[in-house]
């Protein structure tokens, strides 16, 4: 039996080698996969565990709470308002940034005198830390010393005492102005690069054939730049959903909670109210919501093909 088995083994040596070869590649990449999974999944799993406990920084109690925090999420009106505020900002700022970025890209795709200098100046806002941009805009909007009210006053011919970051009718415009100012150049850069690669000869041929600007844009330019535009929209959309710094610097989420975004609400719960477990539950909700949105968007944009 032993001999037979041994003979079999001897006879099967090449087959054993093939199997080992097949397994070996997995063995080689296993550590890397494990490290990636550990880095990527451990915080998620740990957060999930925390969200099922009752951890607050003010208490030693870390008992298991089950799904209570998840149930609480659905009763938390302030959370859903914060999500709604975030959606409003995203829904207005994203198209604005896209349109303005595209317009600027069109302007600069032609060789203009001094183009490098203008482009360098235009992209400056994206290099500024968002919180600094927010603080700068707060100064610009200052009703006493800020230049915006002064300029408006010169135009109106009388003092314009708009309280940009106090009065409810002005807070959203203030946030959107600051946000669009800072991130339109990002959109511009990507679209500029994409536009530069559009086949000029096709456009010229279409124009010679009498196609309108809209038709050329729709039939030639848009299909050519769409992959880049879609990625730009995705990046900015996700960024906007996480918007924090500019809003914090301008209004801190006020008046009341009128401009509180999901990131601000999460910060308040986690680092002002010390509700560690509930914050973890919010984080999970956001992950789920964003995953759904991203999967849907990728499908719609046909980027996954």
């Amino acid at each position, binding site marked *: 039996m032993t001999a037979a088995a041994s003979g079999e083994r001897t006879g099967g040596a090449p087959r054993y080698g093939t199997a080992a070869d097949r397994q070996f590649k997995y063995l080689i990449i296993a550590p890397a996969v494990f490290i990636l999974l550990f880095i990527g999944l451990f915080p998620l799993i740990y957060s999930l565990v925390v969200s099922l406990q009752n951890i607050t920084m003010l208490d030693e109690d870390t008992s298991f709470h089950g799904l209570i925090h998840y149930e609480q999420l659905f009763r938390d009106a302030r959370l859903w308002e914060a999500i709604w505020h975030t959606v409003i900002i995203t829904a207005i700022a994203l198209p604005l940034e896209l349109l303005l970025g595209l317009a600027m890209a069109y302007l600069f795709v032609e060789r203009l005198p001094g183009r490098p200098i203008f482009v360098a100046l235009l992209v400056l806002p994206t290099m500024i830390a968002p919180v600094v941009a927010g603080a700068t805009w707060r100064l610009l909007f200052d009703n006493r010393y800020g230049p915006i009210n002064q300029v408006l006053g010169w135009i109106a011919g009388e003092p314009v005492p708009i309280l940009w970051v106090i009065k409810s009718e002005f807070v959203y415009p203030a946030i959107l102005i600051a946000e669009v100012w800072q991130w339109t150049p990002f959109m511009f850069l990507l679209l500029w690069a994409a536009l530069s690669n559009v086949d000029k000869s096709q456009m010229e041929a279409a124009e010679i054939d009498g196609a309108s600007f809209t038709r050329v844009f729709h039939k030639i330019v848009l299909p050519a730049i769409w992959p880049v535009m879609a990625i730009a929209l995705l990046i900015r959309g996700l960024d906007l959903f996480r918007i924090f710094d500019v809003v914090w610097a301008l209004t801190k989420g006020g008046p*009341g909670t009128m401009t509180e975004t999901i990131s601000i609400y999460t910060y308040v719960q986690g680092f002002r109210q010390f509700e560690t477990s509930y914050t973890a539950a919010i984080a999970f909700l956001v992950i789920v919501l964003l995953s759904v949105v991203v999967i849907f968007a990728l499908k719609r944009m046909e980027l996954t093909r």
Partner: protein
Amino acid sequence: MTLERFTLAASVAAALSLGAGAALAESAADRAVEAAKQFAGEEITIVWEAGLQSLDPLNYSGPKWEELTGIKVKVIEVPTAEMFTKILQEHRAGTGAYDALNVVPTWMADLARAGALEPLDPYVDKYGYREELQTIAPTYRDNQMTVDGKIYGFPDDGDLFILYYRKDIFEDPENQAEFKAKFGYDLAPPATWEQYAEIGDFITSKFAPDVYGAGQFRQPAYGQLLFQERFRVEGGKFFDPETMKATINNEIGVKVFDGMKSDNKFMPPGVETWGFVEALSSFLAGEIAMTISWPPFGRWAAGYGVDEEALSWVPKSTIAGKVGYALPPGGTPQLALGFSLAVSSSSKNKEAAYLFIQWLNSEDTSIARVQLPYALRDPFREAHFTNEVYLSRWPDAKHYLETLRAGADSGLLDLSLLQIDRYEEALRQSMTRLWAGEDSQTILNDVAAQWDAITERIGVEKQREAYLDWASKPNAYPKN
């Protein structure tokens, strides 16, 4: 031989008694310095409010402590709004990154119960500091030092809101006559909020836009403190002590909110955005006739210390010699914030940290610290209010210190409950809604609902106990 032995023993006993006597005669500051020399060469860290406050340990007390003891002091500057979070986070992480702490007294209960603060009683007894603690002004000593009967911090900053007014406008005979003819009483620092509004309106009507009747903090963090004061002055109570239901949305709360909003009409345009700097610069520039603020306003308005480089950002006072000091309407100023010195329970050098705060807080050291023009520490010991040097700092310093002393007696404690920041956050948000123009009753109903939800979450009985403990203190509500 026996006689020799007796003589020797007697001499030794006498020498020891003299030594002990000398030791007892030492001040608390000296004792701290002597004991701290054993830690020479080490470094301690202390959390201090960022900005002017921290110039005290950076420029004065830190270097002096190092010179006296050989212990280095590393100052960790943290903005006030983040101090509580940072202290708690470091404690939970157990890093031992902080040795000594500055804590706002209303946070002490939460921090102590979370185990972040070291009980100080054993150190106080070991280094003979108990007696000197008694010379801290009673309001601060009795309310800002202990949690559940244990000492967790040394009150170190006599914060309170004082009314500053323009004497030249108030004492002008023409203004006085006009005012009396219109309102039937003398133009003087307002004793009630109604008088405050009438005086403010009178001055604005007569002098604006050159001078407005008043200018006031309106940023939420400060505004909510002014609300707390005015609400209690008008007779409001924060909670029903039986049920712990919030009563902040009663008619008194609405009256106060309406009053605060209506006061903005005689204040400079855009006052809704005002914080410390805006109110200070306007008052020093002579643009407002009244303001209610912390003690540094009074010193700087008189021109004290503003030549210091650290204060170069403070506008030059145009009203030095024209500033009067009074208690705010109602006579019971808010003891707004303040700081106590504490030791972190996760410190790896608690003894040295304790000795540093004893030395800082001691009568000898603090007398100099409260006179540092740039450091924002305000008088908090009996001796500070009567110090001859301080009394001679500027012509009206005596009146200033008398007003601070009176305020320290009658001052109202900031509301202190378990997880107080949650309650304050609701109030802070309500201030922003008020300035945005929402209806007072609606806002306060929301605040009351939020407060009730927070109380429910913490536990009604637990919170009720904390509230009753706070409310039983003599300075929780006005005495009359």
